[in-house]
């Protein structure tokens, strides 16, 4: 019996070891498109092995309810895996909430199962686990709500807000410290759940909808750290590894985003950046802009040799990616060299544009990273900006007073001709005017991205008849 038990235990551990290897390989293979799907497969096999191993666990007496829960979860998971590509940001936020919920609940159960017999270090890790997980839970729900526009996108700020928020967090930490010293005080435990839940909400209130991606990445990192803490509590190396991988992934993505926006973490979290939006908009009505019609635009594109398309948030909102693909096909058929310039923070999520264009079957080797394409703009006949704004704003290079000064941008203004599809002269996410629109070689193409591109495609088709 004991031998069998030990053997079982060892088998489980070995399965977990193999699963860990597969998880690491999964992320490693994700680094390039050619191996990425193999990465997903490795992750899936690792997950199956880990779950299978867990079911061998000696203490398990009841498989029925586990099966029910797994089926129920899969039932919810499938639709969450089939959402539209444009809904991916809020889906990601929602799944962070689910992950954090799981960690919070497991942490809570572990506490009540073990109290008052909880060693100090264990209690410290457990506190960290539930505090991080519960603030991630409500924070992610809020973020999902803002992205789905169920909640107001606009940041809500008031005086002393940071002070209040940090005060709330401090309560949770004080309770945690007390519990570490007196792990028997189980009536205090709920406070350590509820207070961070409140903090999670308060934390997101002052952050603008458009800053959500950075926040989501940061919450991703928290979710990973809380899972790793859970690994310490359950003494599971697999969980520690998965948590550490997730934690570093979220952290790195937030750093990449902050860098590409030339902002600091603190600025994102406490800056209420989106607020500027209203103030500077609508000025400078005196400068002249030149606009063009779809058939003029089609003519210019048809006459070009090299075209670079710069997609932005507006393309995503208008769901114009499929029309853009038609435009790409039409121009390529005419022998025009068409490539896409992807700014790291174009859209509202890291890699947002890549996924949308891939969805529309644009070959990924036509999607160029900023550093690779910037030197090509001077040799480009037409730069076609579709619903992008901030990521093309030359003020970032030249105007020291601009809030986006220093942010690396796509050097669209160096192309021979620039055409910009957007609905109005309204600013983008950063809320500032774009000098690009007033250049002599810039033509504004006013209209919704999807319908305007559609018109161009029609004109091009007409011309070939």
């Amino acid at each position, binding site marked *: 019996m004991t031998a069998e038990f030990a053997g079982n235990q060892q088998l489980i551990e070995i399965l977990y070891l193999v699963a860990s290897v597969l998880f690491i390989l999964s992320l490693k293979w994700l680094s390039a498109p050619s191996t990425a799907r193999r990465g997903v497969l490795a992750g899936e096999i690792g*997950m199956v092995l880990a*779950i299978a191993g867990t079911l061998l666990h000696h*203490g398990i007496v009841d498989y029925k309810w586990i099966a029910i829960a797994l089926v129920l979860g899969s039932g919810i998971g499938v639709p969450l895996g089939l959402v539209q590509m444009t809904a991916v940001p809020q889906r990601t936020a929602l799944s962070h909430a689910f992950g954090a919920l799981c960690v919070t609940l*497991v942490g809570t159960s572990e506490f009540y199962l073990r109290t008052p017999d909880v060693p100090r270090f264990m209690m410290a*890790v457990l506190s960290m686990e539930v505090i991080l997980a519960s603030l991630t839970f409500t924070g992610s729900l809020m973020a999902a709500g803002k992205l789905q526009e169920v909640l107001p996108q606009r940041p809500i700020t008031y005086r002393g807000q940071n002070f209040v928020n940090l005060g709330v967090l401090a309560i949770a930490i004080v309770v945690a410290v007390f519990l570490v010293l007196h792990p028997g005080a189980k009536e205090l435990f709920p406070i350590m759940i509820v207070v961070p839940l409140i903090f999670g909400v308060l934390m997101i209130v002052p952050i603008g909808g458009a800053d959500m991606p950075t926040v989501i990445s940061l919450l991703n990192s928290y979710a990973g750290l809380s899972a790793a803490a859970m*690994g310490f509590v359950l003494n599971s190396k*697999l*969980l520690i590894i998965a948590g550490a991988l997730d934690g570093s992934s979220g952290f790195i993505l937030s750093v990449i985003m902050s860098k590409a926006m030339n902002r600091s973490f603190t600025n994102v979290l406490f800056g209420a950046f989106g607020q500027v939006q209203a103030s500077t908009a609508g000025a400078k009505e005196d400068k002249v802009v030149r606009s063009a019609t779809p058939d003029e635009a089609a003519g210019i594109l048809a006459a070009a040799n090299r075209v670079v398309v710069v997609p932005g948030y507006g393309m995503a909102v208008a769901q114009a990616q499929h029309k853009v693909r038609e435009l790409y096909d039409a121009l390529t058929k005419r022998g025009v060299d068409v490539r896409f310039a992807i700014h790291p923070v174009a859209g509202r999520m*890291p890699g947002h544009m*890549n996924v949308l264009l891939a969805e529309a079957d644009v070959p990924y080797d036509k999607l160029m990273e900023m550093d690779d394409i910037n030197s090509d703009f001077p040799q480009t006949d037409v730069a076609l900006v579709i619903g992008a704004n901030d990521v093309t704003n030359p003020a970032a290079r030249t105007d020291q007073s601009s809030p986006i000064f220093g942010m690396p941008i796509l050097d669209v203004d160096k192309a021979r001709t620039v055409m910009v599809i957007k609905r109005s002269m309204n600013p983008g996410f950063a809320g500032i005017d774009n000098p690009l629109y007033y250049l002599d070689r810039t033509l504004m193409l006013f209209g919704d991205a999807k319908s305007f591109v559609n018109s161009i495609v029609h004109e091009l088709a007409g011309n070939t008849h």
Partner: protein
Amino acid sequence: MGSALIDGLFVFMLAGFIGFEVIRRVSPLLHTPLMSLTNALDAIAVVGAIVLVGEHKSNLSFILGMIAVVAATSNVVGGFLITDRMLRMFKSSRPTKP
């Protein structure tokens, strides 16, 4: 216990290192799938929840465990599904080698 803590710290340190090295090298092209994949992997927390349900040590732990399994499983299934859906979309214009 102290030794388990140190053991855990060793593993955490090493895995964190791997995370940084590996993820820094993920192509920006794939940052969105990266987010959904790490999400799915992180849902490995389901193993802790499964044990809670299976052991049924208390009603509280059983009920919380059930909810936790459902939540995490939805992440596992949804996360892998959407990651693979996204990746299937990425196509090269060059014909792939046989």
